[in-house]
């Protein structure tokens, strides 16, 4: 576009409006032949436009035409990653706490008050660090979503909501439906069963939260493959009495995919059937959980425990068992490689990426609202050796 000179002399729609003594929107309608304008007025405007030399700007026309019929992904596609459960030390979590004035400390503080009194301080510390480790995955999900969004050329906003002080009006006030094409629902806390927004306005993808309404396209870690991988490695390392301990809520959230993985390999390898330990309250009452776990280990004479808790070693230790001398263990949801802890690394960053990709596909197909039945994408985990599960032959008899 040439800028100088020409611009000053170019006749605009506003000049036509002035000459015709109508509003410029009327000129626009007349020129495009739209709207309800008396034919006489239209003719008069067209004539004046011709007389004073109005010409449509072909570049602007091109842009307008393109913008009105743009299909698929373009620069203005905007997605929102909606989540609670940020790690207590994550800036995103803090930001929320500041702007919605939740009382100091972590959002879960009142649950934590229920922690038993005896060794209170030390337990609180551990609960905090465990829940921080568990919540750090949210940052990885968010990073993956943002990375992929950038690759695909769409904008991505993070929107964090409270945990207990979850407020639907607050979310609504911060979501701008006119500018938002799709929403990714991050792994919400199992305490929250339902999220009500005007779903028909958005394309929707959920991460790791199959338990929660609404039903939507799901992207998650592949718990089925992860449990299978851990079980096979336990067997390879020489273990035979293999038990699995997982959170009840997590299993409900994943439609028992950890259990499915456990059953299928146990049967394939013909190993003893040991009931899976489901725990409901491991965050609230670690002492009771540790006791239950150790009772279960002793009752079934277990050699190794596969668990979906990062703190599985601490539970066993608190129950009076030494890892790996008395019992070996593996973690099914490692965030990062840990030479001390064997298990399967879950790739939360990749889950975030695939969620953004799945959402972009829905947006491209102009799929708004909730799809039933919906597809599920699972990201495989990666095996990681560690000191908590040494080869069985090498252990002291």
């Amino acid at each position, binding site marked *: 576009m040439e800028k100088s000179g020409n611009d000053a002399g170019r006749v605009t729609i506003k000049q036509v409006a002035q000459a015709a003594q109508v509003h410029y929107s009327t000129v626009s309608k007349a020129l495009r032949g739209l709207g309800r304008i008396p034919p006489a007025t239209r003719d008069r405007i067209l004539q004046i436009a011709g007389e004073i030399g109005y010409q449509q700007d072909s570049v602007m026309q091109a842009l307008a035409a393109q913008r009105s019929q743009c299909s698929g992904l373009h620069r203005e596609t905007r997605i929102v990653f909606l989540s609670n459960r940020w790690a207590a030390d994550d800036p995103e979590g803090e930001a929320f706490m500041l702007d919605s004035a939740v009382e100091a400390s972590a959002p879960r503080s009142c649950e934590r008050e229920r922690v038993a009194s005896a060794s209170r301080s030390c337990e609180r510390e551990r609960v905090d660090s465990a829940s921080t480790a568990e919540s750090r995955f949210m940052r990885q999900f968010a990073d993956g979503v943002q990375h992929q969004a950038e690759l695909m050329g769409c904008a991505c906003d993070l929107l964090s909501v409270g945990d207990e002080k979850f407020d639907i009006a607050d979310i609504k006030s911060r979501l701008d439906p006119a500018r938002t094409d799709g929403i990714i629902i991050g792994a919400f806390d199992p305490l929250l069963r339902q999220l009500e927004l005007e779903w028909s306005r958005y394309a929707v993808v959920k991460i790791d939260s199959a338990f929660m309404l609404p039903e939507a396209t799901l992207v998650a870690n592949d718990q089925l493959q992860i449990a299978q991988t851990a079980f096979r490695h336990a067997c390879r390392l020489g273990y035979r009495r293999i038990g699995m301990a997982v959170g009840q809520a997590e299993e409900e959230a994943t439609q*028992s995919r950890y*259990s499915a993985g456990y059953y299928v390999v146990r049967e394939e390898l013909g190993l003893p059937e040991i009931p899976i330990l489901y725990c409901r309250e491991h965050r609230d009452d670690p002492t009771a959980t540790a006791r239950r776990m150790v009772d279960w280990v002793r009752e079934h004479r277990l050699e190794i425990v596969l668990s979906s808790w990062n703190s599985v070693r601490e539970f066993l230790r608190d129950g009076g068992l030494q890892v790996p001398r008395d019992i070996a263990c593996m973690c099914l949801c490692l965030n990062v490689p840990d030479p001390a802890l064997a298990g399967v690394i879950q790739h939360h960053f990749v889950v975030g990426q695939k969620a953004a990709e799945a959402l972009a596909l829905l947006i491209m197909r102009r799929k708004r609202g909730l799809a039933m039945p919906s*597809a599920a994408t699972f990201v495989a985990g990666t095996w990681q050796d560690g000191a908590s599960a040494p080869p069985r032959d090498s252990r002291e008899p």
Partner: protein
Amino acid sequence: MTPSPDHRRVTMSDVALAAHVHKSTVSLALRNQPKLNAATRERIRKIAEELGYRPDPMLALFNLHRRALVPPRSAGAIAFVSDLPTPAAFARSERHEGIFAAAREEAKRLDFTLELFLVGPAQLSPARLSQVLLARGITGILLGVLSPATRSLNIDWSRFCVLGIESMQVEPPVDNVSTDYCQAARLSVLQLWRRGGRNVGFIVANDLGAEIEGQLRAGYLVESHAKSLGRIASFCRLNEEDEDIGRMLQWIDDEKLDAVVGCGVNIAGLSTRLHPDLVSRITWVSIDTRNAPSAGLSVPALLGELGRRAIELLVMRLQINLRGLPPNPVTTFFPVEWREIEK
């Protein structure tokens, strides 16, 4: 962005100057074009970021519009790779042909063409296929349901964007789209339970891989634990071509089955060859519509849906120039719905 005298908008030329490359190279790097080696791409992208380069969305739109003036030209071809022995065998296979036809339609909608390539002893070798595709500038590959025996293809994947359709057995693994066999098995067990079925067995066609059987087993086991059914999954493999009736009868008898779920097997055809007493004593379910039963319980597979979704995902990845094998393979499962067909 507010333009100010000392903060002129950063252009590709600025990036080119700083990176000591031509501005067309910058353009390639920013579009993640694999023609450029990865290190150069990364270096230029980093410099662009440091300088604060932002693509101008208005210009991008304008370019899109300009390109739309050119008569629509195919964006390119995508290869649909199958290991069936002959084109005739491919056309005969409802599973393959069903997926292919839907995928071709979807490709057309997105301005791509879909071409069938057969690999195997009497057909192209994977190495030759790879040469042909590179020579023709085809970078998108769909592995169209490879048979369980094909466990790897000697192809330099770093040059291609590849997606599998129910080809989970391939090593190293690629991303896949698949019918949700685990959910199909759970649904079947649940529905049979409601009808009084307690001893459920599965007949699986030989052309379905071990990974698919694993998904079926997982679905069966987790649902049967929930319902306290017989805990051992009972599976029988069957060859579609010469269905071994005798062996199957023995299995049904040995396992005292009262319900049979067939996966990829012609249940309707099978039951016509069995004694009517046996047919009526047992509840039959068919997973897959390759041989849609005229009556009965079925969980139709989503052949067309798989083909369409696969193309859509592949095209999206081609558009952002994704190449090579995924460091963390993923599978997207499409759930099936329960259907009852009255006689």
